[in-house]
Protein backbone atom coordinates (compact mmCIF):
# COMPACT_ATOMS: atom_id res chain seq x y z
CA UNK A 1 0.00 0.00 0.00
CA UNK A 2 1.04 3.60 -0.56
CA UNK A 3 0.78 6.12 2.25
CA UNK A 4 -0.76 9.36 1.02
CA UNK A 5 -0.61 12.66 2.89
CA UNK A 6 -3.64 14.86 2.19
CA UNK A 7 -3.35 18.69 2.31
CA UNK A 8 -5.89 20.74 4.22
CA UNK A 9 -7.57 21.85 0.98
CA UNK A 10 -8.55 18.28 0.17
CA UNK A 11 -9.50 16.93 3.57
CA UNK A 12 -13.19 17.64 2.95
CA UNK A 13 -12.97 14.63 0.63
CA UNK A 14 -11.27 12.35 3.18
CA UNK A 15 -13.54 13.19 6.09
CA UNK A 16 -10.67 15.10 7.62
CA UNK A 17 -8.12 12.33 7.36
CA UNK A 18 -4.56 13.59 6.93
CA UNK A 19 -3.02 10.20 6.08
CA UNK A 20 -4.75 7.58 4.01
CA UNK A 21 -3.63 4.42 2.28
CA UNK A 22 -4.21 3.50 -1.33
CA UNK A 23 -3.01 0.82 -3.69
CA UNK A 24 -1.23 1.55 -6.95
CA UNK A 25 1.97 0.99 -8.88
CA UNK A 26 2.19 4.64 -10.03
CA UNK A 27 1.10 7.99 -8.67
CA UNK A 28 -1.66 8.01 -11.28
CA UNK A 29 -2.94 4.64 -10.11
CA UNK A 30 -2.83 5.74 -6.49
CA UNK A 31 -4.83 8.87 -7.36
CA UNK A 32 -7.33 6.71 -9.23
CA UNK A 33 -7.68 4.52 -6.17
CA UNK A 34 -8.18 7.58 -4.00
CA UNK A 35 -10.76 8.93 -6.43
CA UNK A 36 -12.70 5.69 -6.28
CA UNK A 37 -12.92 6.04 -2.53
CA UNK A 38 -13.24 9.85 -2.42
CA UNK A 39 -15.02 10.84 -5.66
CA UNK A 40 -13.78 14.04 -7.23
CA UNK A 41 -10.48 14.32 -5.38
CA UNK A 42 -8.25 13.52 -8.36
CA UNK A 43 -9.71 16.18 -10.65
CA UNK A 44 -8.88 18.85 -8.09
CA UNK A 45 -5.19 17.91 -8.41
CA UNK A 46 -4.81 16.57 -11.97
CA UNK A 47 -6.46 18.19 -14.99
CA UNK A 48 -8.25 16.42 -17.83
CA UNK A 49 -5.01 16.23 -19.82
CA UNK A 50 -3.25 14.31 -17.05
CA UNK A 51 -1.16 17.30 -15.97
CA UNK A 52 -0.52 18.24 -12.38
CA UNK A 53 -2.39 21.50 -11.85
CA UNK A 54 -0.31 24.67 -11.53
CA UNK A 55 0.86 25.29 -7.97
CA UNK A 56 -0.09 21.80 -6.86
CA UNK A 57 2.89 19.67 -5.90
CA UNK A 58 3.30 15.93 -5.52
CA UNK A 59 6.23 14.40 -3.66
CA UNK A 60 7.17 10.74 -3.76
CA UNK A 61 9.26 9.75 -0.74
CA UNK A 62 10.18 13.40 -0.30
CA UNK A 63 11.29 14.02 -3.87
CA UNK A 64 9.30 16.32 -6.15
CA UNK A 65 7.39 14.27 -8.71
CA UNK A 66 6.83 16.02 -12.01
CA UNK A 67 4.93 13.20 -13.69
CA UNK A 68 2.08 11.06 -12.48
CA UNK A 69 3.37 7.93 -14.22
CA UNK A 70 6.18 7.76 -11.67
CA UNK A 71 6.52 4.19 -10.35
CA UNK A 72 5.90 3.49 -6.69
CA UNK A 73 6.63 0.51 -4.44
CA UNK A 74 4.77 -0.88 -1.50
CA UNK A 75 5.32 1.32 1.54
CA UNK A 76 6.17 4.47 -0.43
CA UNK A 77 4.74 7.83 0.57
CA UNK A 78 2.98 10.33 -1.69
CA UNK A 79 2.68 13.81 -0.25
CA UNK A 80 0.15 16.12 -1.92
CA UNK A 81 0.79 19.81 -1.34
CA UNK A 82 -1.32 22.80 -2.28
CA UNK A 83 0.86 25.89 -2.50
CA UNK A 84 -0.26 28.51 -0.02
CA UNK A 85 -0.12 31.47 -2.34
CA UNK A 86 -2.77 34.00 -3.11
CA UNK A 87 -4.47 36.62 -1.03
Amino acid at each position, binding site marked *: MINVVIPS*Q*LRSYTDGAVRVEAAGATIDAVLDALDARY*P*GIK*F*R*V*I*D*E*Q*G*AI*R*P*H*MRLFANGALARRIDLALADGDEVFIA*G*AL*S*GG
Partner: protein
Amino acid sequence: MADGIRLLIGTRKGAWIYRSDGARKSWDVTGPIMLGHIINHVVCDPRDGKTLMMAAKTGHLGPTIFRSNDDGATWKEAEKPPAFLKSDEPNARAVSHTFWVEPGHASEPGVWWAGASPPGLFRSADGGATWENVAGFNEHPKYWDWCPPDGGTPDGALLNQIQIDPRDKAHMYIATSTGGVFESRDYAASWAPLNQNVEASFFPDPYPDYGQDAHYIAVHPAMPDRLYQQNHCGIYRLDRPGDRWERIGNNMPKEIGDIDFTIIAHPREPDTAWVFPMDGTEVWPRTSPGGKPAVYRTRDAGASWERQDRGFPPAQAWFTVKRQAFCADAGTPLGLYLGATNGEVWMSDDEGVHWRCIAAHLPEIYSVVAAPA
Protein backbone atom coordinates in the same frame (compact mmCIF):
# COMPACT_ATOMS: atom_id res chain seq x y z
CA MET B 1 -45.26 44.25 -4.57
CA ALA B 2 -42.83 41.47 -5.28
CA ASP B 3 -42.89 37.94 -3.98
CA GLY B 4 -40.11 37.01 -1.60
CA ILE B 5 -36.65 37.42 -3.07
CA ARG B 6 -33.37 35.56 -2.74
CA LEU B 7 -30.12 37.13 -3.85
CA LEU B 8 -27.53 34.49 -4.71
CA ILE B 9 -24.15 36.13 -4.31
CA GLY B 10 -20.90 34.64 -5.56
CA THR B 11 -17.64 36.19 -4.45
CA ARG B 12 -13.94 35.65 -4.66
CA LYS B 13 -14.10 33.91 -1.29
CA GLY B 14 -17.43 32.15 -0.99
CA ALA B 15 -21.15 32.54 -1.51
CA TRP B 16 -23.91 34.19 0.46
CA ILE B 17 -27.69 34.18 0.18
CA TYR B 18 -29.71 37.26 1.15
CA ARG B 19 -33.45 36.90 1.61
CA SER B 20 -36.28 39.39 1.84
CA ASP B 21 -40.04 39.33 1.79
CA GLY B 22 -41.98 41.04 -0.93
CA ALA B 23 -41.47 44.45 0.63
CA ARG B 24 -37.72 44.19 -0.06
CA LYS B 25 -36.99 46.50 2.88
CA SER B 26 -35.00 44.20 5.19
CA TRP B 27 -32.70 41.34 4.36
CA ASP B 28 -31.55 38.26 6.23
CA VAL B 29 -28.26 36.65 5.36
CA THR B 30 -27.13 33.03 5.15
CA GLY B 31 -23.44 32.36 4.76
CA PRO B 32 -20.67 32.15 4.16
CA ILE B 33 -21.18 29.09 1.99
CA MET B 34 -17.98 27.43 0.76
CA LEU B 35 -15.86 30.03 2.49
CA GLY B 36 -12.58 30.46 0.68
CA HIS B 37 -13.79 29.01 -2.59
CA ILE B 38 -13.86 31.22 -5.67
CA ILE B 39 -17.52 31.32 -6.68
CA ASN B 40 -18.07 32.72 -10.14
CA HIS B 41 -21.78 32.10 -10.45
CA VAL B 42 -24.70 30.81 -8.37
CA VAL B 43 -28.00 30.25 -10.17
CA CYS B 44 -31.44 29.00 -9.16
CA ASP B 45 -33.26 26.67 -11.53
CA PRO B 46 -36.43 28.51 -12.61
CA ARG B 47 -37.96 25.19 -13.68
CA ASP B 48 -38.24 23.87 -10.14
CA GLY B 49 -37.58 27.00 -8.13
CA LYS B 50 -35.25 25.22 -5.71
CA THR B 51 -32.17 23.67 -7.31
CA LEU B 52 -29.09 25.87 -6.94
CA MET B 53 -26.05 25.44 -9.20
CA MET B 54 -22.69 26.89 -8.21
CA ALA B 55 -19.51 27.25 -10.28
CA ALA B 56 -16.52 26.97 -7.96
CA LYS B 57 -12.78 27.01 -8.07
CA THR B 58 -10.66 26.73 -5.00
CA GLY B 59 -7.26 28.30 -4.85
CA HIS B 60 -5.04 26.03 -6.88
CA LEU B 61 -7.43 23.09 -6.87
CA GLY B 62 -9.22 22.19 -10.06
CA PRO B 63 -12.60 23.68 -10.94
CA THR B 64 -15.86 22.03 -10.06
CA ILE B 65 -19.61 22.45 -9.78
CA PHE B 66 -21.67 22.17 -6.63
CA ARG B 67 -25.43 21.84 -6.52
CA SER B 68 -27.98 22.09 -3.75
CA ASN B 69 -31.55 20.86 -3.57
CA ASP B 70 -32.30 22.31 -0.15
CA ASP B 71 -31.90 26.06 -0.68
CA GLY B 72 -28.19 26.02 -0.01
CA ALA B 73 -28.19 24.11 3.28
CA THR B 74 -26.14 21.26 1.78
CA TRP B 75 -24.16 20.99 -1.42
CA LYS B 76 -23.14 18.03 -3.52
CA GLU B 77 -20.21 18.09 -5.90
CA ALA B 78 -20.64 17.14 -9.55
CA GLU B 79 -19.48 13.60 -10.17
CA LYS B 80 -17.98 14.69 -13.47
CA PRO B 81 -17.31 18.44 -13.67
CA PRO B 82 -16.88 20.24 -17.00
CA ALA B 83 -13.68 19.09 -18.74
CA PHE B 84 -12.31 19.21 -22.25
CA LEU B 85 -11.60 16.07 -24.25
CA LYS B 86 -8.31 14.36 -23.62
CA SER B 87 -5.84 15.43 -26.28
CA ASP B 88 -2.21 14.89 -27.18
CA GLU B 89 -2.02 18.18 -29.07
CA PRO B 90 0.43 20.75 -27.69
CA ASN B 91 -2.42 23.21 -27.12
CA ALA B 92 -4.57 20.71 -25.24
CA ARG B 93 -7.04 22.56 -23.06
CA ALA B 94 -7.87 22.11 -19.41
CA VAL B 95 -10.74 23.96 -17.77
CA SER B 96 -9.39 26.63 -15.45
CA HIS B 97 -12.75 27.61 -14.08
CA THR B 98 -16.41 27.50 -14.95
CA PHE B 99 -17.60 31.06 -15.33
CA TRP B 100 -21.28 30.79 -16.18
CA VAL B 101 -24.02 28.23 -15.51
CA GLU B 102 -27.29 28.42 -17.42
CA PRO B 103 -30.46 26.43 -16.83
CA GLY B 104 -31.59 24.67 -19.99
CA HIS B 105 -34.78 25.45 -21.87
CA ALA B 106 -38.02 25.24 -19.94
CA SER B 107 -38.95 22.12 -21.91
CA GLU B 108 -35.85 20.27 -20.70
CA PRO B 109 -35.84 19.80 -16.94
CA GLY B 110 -32.46 18.66 -15.71
CA VAL B 111 -30.53 20.13 -18.63
CA TRP B 112 -27.89 22.73 -17.78
CA TRP B 113 -25.21 24.48 -19.80
CA ALA B 114 -21.88 25.86 -18.61
CA GLY B 115 -19.32 28.24 -20.04
CA ALA B 116 -15.68 28.02 -19.01
CA SER B 117 -12.21 29.46 -19.24
CA PRO B 118 -10.50 28.78 -21.58
CA PRO B 119 -13.59 29.18 -23.74
CA GLY B 120 -15.54 25.97 -23.54
CA LEU B 121 -19.17 24.92 -23.68
CA PHE B 122 -20.44 22.04 -21.58
CA ARG B 123 -23.82 20.40 -21.04
CA SER B 124 -25.38 18.37 -18.30
CA ALA B 125 -28.52 16.30 -18.82
CA ASP B 126 -28.78 15.03 -15.25
CA GLY B 127 -29.21 18.15 -13.17
CA GLY B 128 -25.53 19.02 -13.03
CA ALA B 129 -24.21 15.67 -11.78
CA THR B 130 -22.19 14.94 -14.92
CA TRP B 131 -21.07 17.33 -17.64
CA GLU B 132 -20.18 16.60 -21.25
CA ASN B 133 -17.95 18.43 -23.68
CA VAL B 134 -20.02 20.16 -26.40
CA ALA B 135 -18.08 19.31 -29.54
CA GLY B 136 -20.14 21.62 -31.75
CA PHE B 137 -18.28 24.55 -30.25
CA ASN B 138 -15.23 23.14 -28.48
CA GLU B 139 -14.16 21.08 -31.51
CA HIS B 140 -15.44 23.49 -34.16
CA PRO B 141 -12.96 23.77 -37.07
CA LYS B 142 -12.69 27.50 -36.40
CA TYR B 143 -12.31 27.17 -32.63
CA TRP B 144 -8.71 28.29 -32.51
CA ASP B 145 -9.49 31.27 -34.72
CA TRP B 146 -12.38 32.26 -32.50
CA CYS B 147 -10.55 31.48 -29.27
CA PRO B 148 -6.82 31.98 -29.85
CA PRO B 149 -4.65 30.56 -27.09
CA ASP B 150 -3.04 33.92 -26.35
CA GLY B 151 -6.32 35.80 -26.05
CA GLY B 152 -8.24 36.60 -22.97
CA THR B 153 -9.01 38.74 -20.00
CA PRO B 154 -6.82 39.09 -16.90
CA ASP B 155 -8.80 36.16 -15.51
CA GLY B 156 -8.30 34.13 -18.68
CA ALA B 157 -10.20 33.86 -21.95
CA LEU B 158 -13.86 33.23 -21.36
CA LEU B 159 -16.97 31.69 -22.74
CA ASN B 160 -18.75 34.03 -20.40
CA GLN B 161 -22.40 33.62 -21.19
CA ILE B 162 -25.04 31.32 -22.64
CA GLN B 163 -28.53 32.45 -23.61
CA ILE B 164 -31.36 30.28 -24.92
CA ASP B 165 -34.29 31.52 -26.98
CA PRO B 166 -37.34 30.87 -24.79
CA ARG B 167 -39.31 29.92 -27.93
CA ASP B 168 -36.83 27.36 -29.25
CA LYS B 169 -34.43 25.22 -27.26
CA ALA B 170 -32.25 24.75 -30.36
CA HIS B 171 -31.68 28.50 -30.79
CA MET B 172 -28.80 29.59 -28.60
CA TYR B 173 -26.38 32.46 -28.21
CA ILE B 174 -23.02 32.49 -26.46
CA ALA B 175 -20.72 35.38 -25.60
CA THR B 176 -16.96 35.06 -25.54
CA SER B 177 -14.12 37.37 -24.62
CA THR B 178 -12.06 36.36 -27.64
CA GLY B 179 -14.52 35.98 -30.52
CA GLY B 180 -17.61 37.96 -29.59
CA VAL B 181 -21.13 36.57 -29.95
CA PHE B 182 -21.95 33.28 -31.66
CA GLU B 183 -25.31 31.83 -32.61
CA SER B 184 -26.52 28.25 -32.98
CA ARG B 185 -29.85 27.18 -34.44
CA ASP B 186 -29.26 23.46 -34.08
CA TYR B 187 -28.89 22.89 -30.34
CA ALA B 188 -25.19 23.77 -30.19
CA ALA B 189 -24.21 21.41 -33.00
CA SER B 190 -22.85 24.29 -35.10
CA TRP B 191 -22.10 27.94 -34.50
CA ALA B 192 -21.62 31.10 -36.52
CA PRO B 193 -20.30 34.53 -35.48
CA LEU B 194 -22.90 37.25 -34.90
CA ASN B 195 -20.81 40.38 -34.65
CA GLN B 196 -21.67 42.54 -37.61
CA ASN B 197 -21.02 46.23 -36.92
CA VAL B 198 -19.63 45.53 -33.43
CA GLU B 199 -16.38 47.36 -32.88
CA ALA B 200 -13.12 45.71 -31.88
CA SER B 201 -10.94 48.80 -31.65
CA PHE B 202 -7.92 46.75 -30.62
CA PHE B 203 -7.58 45.18 -34.10
CA PRO B 204 -6.25 46.73 -37.32
CA ASP B 205 -9.68 46.00 -38.82
CA PRO B 206 -11.97 47.36 -36.10
CA TYR B 207 -15.04 45.57 -37.48
CA PRO B 208 -13.96 41.95 -37.98
CA ASP B 209 -16.33 39.00 -38.37
CA TYR B 210 -15.12 37.76 -34.99
CA GLY B 211 -12.57 38.76 -32.38
CA GLN B 212 -14.82 41.08 -30.35
CA ASP B 213 -15.03 40.91 -26.57
CA ALA B 214 -18.69 40.46 -25.72
CA HIS B 215 -19.02 41.25 -22.03
CA TYR B 216 -22.73 40.51 -21.70
CA ILE B 217 -25.76 39.80 -23.85
CA ALA B 218 -29.40 40.01 -22.81
CA VAL B 219 -32.01 38.19 -24.86
CA HIS B 220 -35.20 39.94 -23.94
CA PRO B 221 -37.50 37.41 -22.25
CA ALA B 222 -40.71 39.05 -23.47
CA MET B 223 -39.40 39.87 -26.93
CA PRO B 224 -36.70 37.30 -27.73
CA ASP B 225 -35.95 38.83 -31.11
CA ARG B 226 -34.39 41.73 -29.26
CA LEU B 227 -30.86 41.42 -27.92
CA TYR B 228 -28.88 43.95 -25.96
CA GLN B 229 -25.13 43.64 -25.76
CA GLN B 230 -22.58 45.30 -23.53
CA ASN B 231 -19.36 44.89 -25.45
CA HIS B 232 -15.81 45.79 -24.52
CA CYS B 233 -16.15 48.67 -27.00
CA GLY B 234 -19.71 49.86 -26.45
CA ILE B 235 -23.43 49.22 -25.97
CA TYR B 236 -25.37 47.58 -28.80
CA ARG B 237 -28.86 46.41 -29.72
CA LEU B 238 -29.86 43.83 -32.29
CA ASP B 239 -33.40 43.19 -33.50
CA ARG B 240 -33.74 39.86 -35.28
CA PRO B 241 -34.02 38.63 -37.91
CA GLY B 242 -31.49 41.37 -38.58
CA ASP B 243 -27.86 40.54 -37.95
CA ARG B 244 -26.35 44.01 -37.78
CA TRP B 245 -25.90 45.41 -34.29
CA GLU B 246 -26.68 49.08 -33.70
CA ARG B 247 -24.42 51.00 -31.34
CA ILE B 248 -26.96 52.53 -28.99
CA GLY B 249 -24.11 53.53 -26.70
CA ASN B 250 -23.43 56.41 -29.05
CA ASN B 251 -26.40 58.04 -27.36
CA MET B 252 -24.79 57.94 -23.92
CA PRO B 253 -23.30 61.19 -22.56
CA LYS B 254 -19.86 61.58 -24.09
CA GLU B 255 -18.24 62.32 -20.74
CA ILE B 256 -19.50 58.96 -19.42
CA GLY B 257 -19.00 56.83 -22.50
CA ASP B 258 -20.54 53.42 -23.13
CA ILE B 259 -18.05 51.04 -21.54
CA ASP B 260 -19.41 48.64 -18.95
CA PHE B 261 -19.40 44.97 -18.05
CA THR B 262 -23.09 44.26 -18.11
CA ILE B 263 -26.54 45.30 -19.32
CA ILE B 264 -29.89 44.40 -17.77
CA ALA B 265 -33.16 44.34 -19.69
CA HIS B 266 -36.46 45.11 -18.01
CA PRO B 267 -38.27 41.76 -18.09
CA ARG B 268 -41.61 43.31 -19.09
CA GLU B 269 -40.57 46.35 -21.11
CA PRO B 270 -38.43 45.54 -24.16
CA ASP B 271 -37.39 49.17 -24.67
CA THR B 272 -36.04 49.52 -21.13
CA ALA B 273 -32.54 48.53 -20.04
CA TRP B 274 -29.87 49.57 -17.58
CA VAL B 275 -26.10 49.77 -17.65
CA PHE B 276 -23.55 50.62 -14.97
CA PRO B 277 -20.84 52.56 -16.82
CA MET B 278 -17.17 52.33 -16.00
CA ASP B 279 -14.14 54.30 -17.02
CA GLY B 280 -12.74 52.93 -20.29
CA THR B 281 -10.37 55.77 -21.04
CA GLU B 282 -6.59 55.63 -21.51
CA VAL B 283 -5.42 52.71 -19.32
CA TRP B 284 -8.95 51.48 -18.62
CA PRO B 285 -9.36 51.97 -14.86
CA ARG B 286 -12.75 50.21 -15.04
CA THR B 287 -14.02 52.23 -12.10
CA SER B 288 -17.11 54.40 -11.87
CA PRO B 289 -16.40 57.39 -14.13
CA GLY B 290 -15.05 60.21 -11.99
CA GLY B 291 -15.58 58.14 -8.86
CA LYS B 292 -19.32 58.84 -9.07
CA PRO B 293 -21.32 55.60 -9.40
CA ALA B 294 -24.54 55.68 -11.39
CA VAL B 295 -26.68 53.50 -13.55
CA TYR B 296 -28.05 54.76 -16.84
CA ARG B 297 -31.50 53.76 -18.02
CA THR B 298 -32.95 53.79 -21.48
CA ARG B 299 -36.70 53.58 -22.01
CA ASP B 300 -36.58 53.93 -25.77
CA ALA B 301 -34.37 50.99 -26.76
CA GLY B 302 -31.19 53.03 -26.52
CA ALA B 303 -32.19 56.21 -28.34
CA SER B 304 -31.63 58.13 -25.11
CA TRP B 305 -30.29 57.47 -21.62
CA GLU B 306 -30.98 59.01 -18.23
CA ARG B 307 -28.66 59.03 -15.24
CA GLN B 308 -29.89 57.39 -12.01
CA ASP B 309 -27.56 58.00 -9.08
CA ARG B 310 -29.70 58.94 -6.08
CA GLY B 311 -28.37 57.13 -3.04
CA PHE B 312 -24.99 56.23 -4.48
CA PRO B 313 -21.96 58.02 -2.99
CA PRO B 314 -21.69 61.43 -4.69
CA ALA B 315 -17.91 61.26 -5.05
CA GLN B 316 -14.78 59.22 -4.33
CA ALA B 317 -16.38 55.85 -4.91
CA TRP B 318 -14.34 53.70 -7.24
CA PHE B 319 -15.98 50.34 -7.37
CA THR B 320 -16.71 48.22 -10.41
CA VAL B 321 -19.61 45.90 -11.19
CA LYS B 322 -18.60 42.75 -13.01
CA ARG B 323 -20.41 40.76 -15.68
CA GLN B 324 -22.74 38.61 -13.58
CA ALA B 325 -23.15 41.09 -10.74
CA PHE B 326 -26.11 43.19 -11.97
CA CYS B 327 -29.61 41.76 -12.05
CA ALA B 328 -33.32 42.43 -11.73
CA ASP B 329 -36.06 40.64 -9.86
CA ALA B 330 -39.59 40.17 -11.21
CA GLY B 331 -41.30 42.63 -8.87
CA THR B 332 -43.52 45.60 -9.57
CA PRO B 333 -41.95 48.06 -9.55
CA LEU B 334 -38.89 46.21 -10.70
CA GLY B 335 -36.09 45.68 -8.20
CA LEU B 336 -32.50 46.09 -9.35
CA TYR B 337 -29.44 44.70 -7.58
CA LEU B 338 -25.75 45.15 -8.17
CA GLY B 339 -22.74 43.69 -6.43
CA ALA B 340 -19.54 45.67 -6.40
CA THR B 341 -15.91 44.77 -6.37
CA ASN B 342 -15.64 46.42 -2.94
CA GLY B 343 -18.01 43.85 -1.44
CA GLU B 344 -21.11 46.02 -1.29
CA VAL B 345 -24.55 45.05 -2.58
CA TRP B 346 -26.74 47.93 -3.74
CA MET B 347 -30.42 47.77 -4.56
CA SER B 348 -33.21 49.86 -5.94
CA ASP B 349 -36.85 48.94 -5.39
CA ASP B 350 -38.16 51.61 -7.75
CA GLU B 351 -36.56 50.76 -11.08
CA GLY B 352 -33.32 52.58 -10.44
CA VAL B 353 -34.61 55.90 -9.12
CA HIS B 354 -33.26 55.42 -5.60
CA TRP B 355 -30.39 53.20 -4.47
CA ARG B 356 -29.33 51.93 -1.09
CA CYS B 357 -26.58 49.66 0.19
CA ILE B 358 -28.00 46.46 1.71
CA ALA B 359 -24.75 44.60 2.36
CA ALA B 360 -21.13 45.59 2.86
CA HIS B 361 -17.79 44.06 3.68
CA LEU B 362 -18.26 40.96 1.57
CA PRO B 363 -15.31 39.78 -0.52
CA GLU B 364 -15.03 41.01 -4.10
CA ILE B 365 -18.39 40.21 -5.68
CA TYR B 366 -18.45 38.24 -8.91
CA SER B 367 -22.16 37.51 -9.32
CA VAL B 368 -25.55 38.52 -8.02
CA VAL B 369 -28.59 36.58 -9.18
CA ALA B 370 -32.14 37.30 -8.01
CA ALA B 371 -34.51 34.38 -7.59
CA PRO B 372 -37.96 33.99 -6.03
CA ALA B 373 -37.78 32.96 -2.38
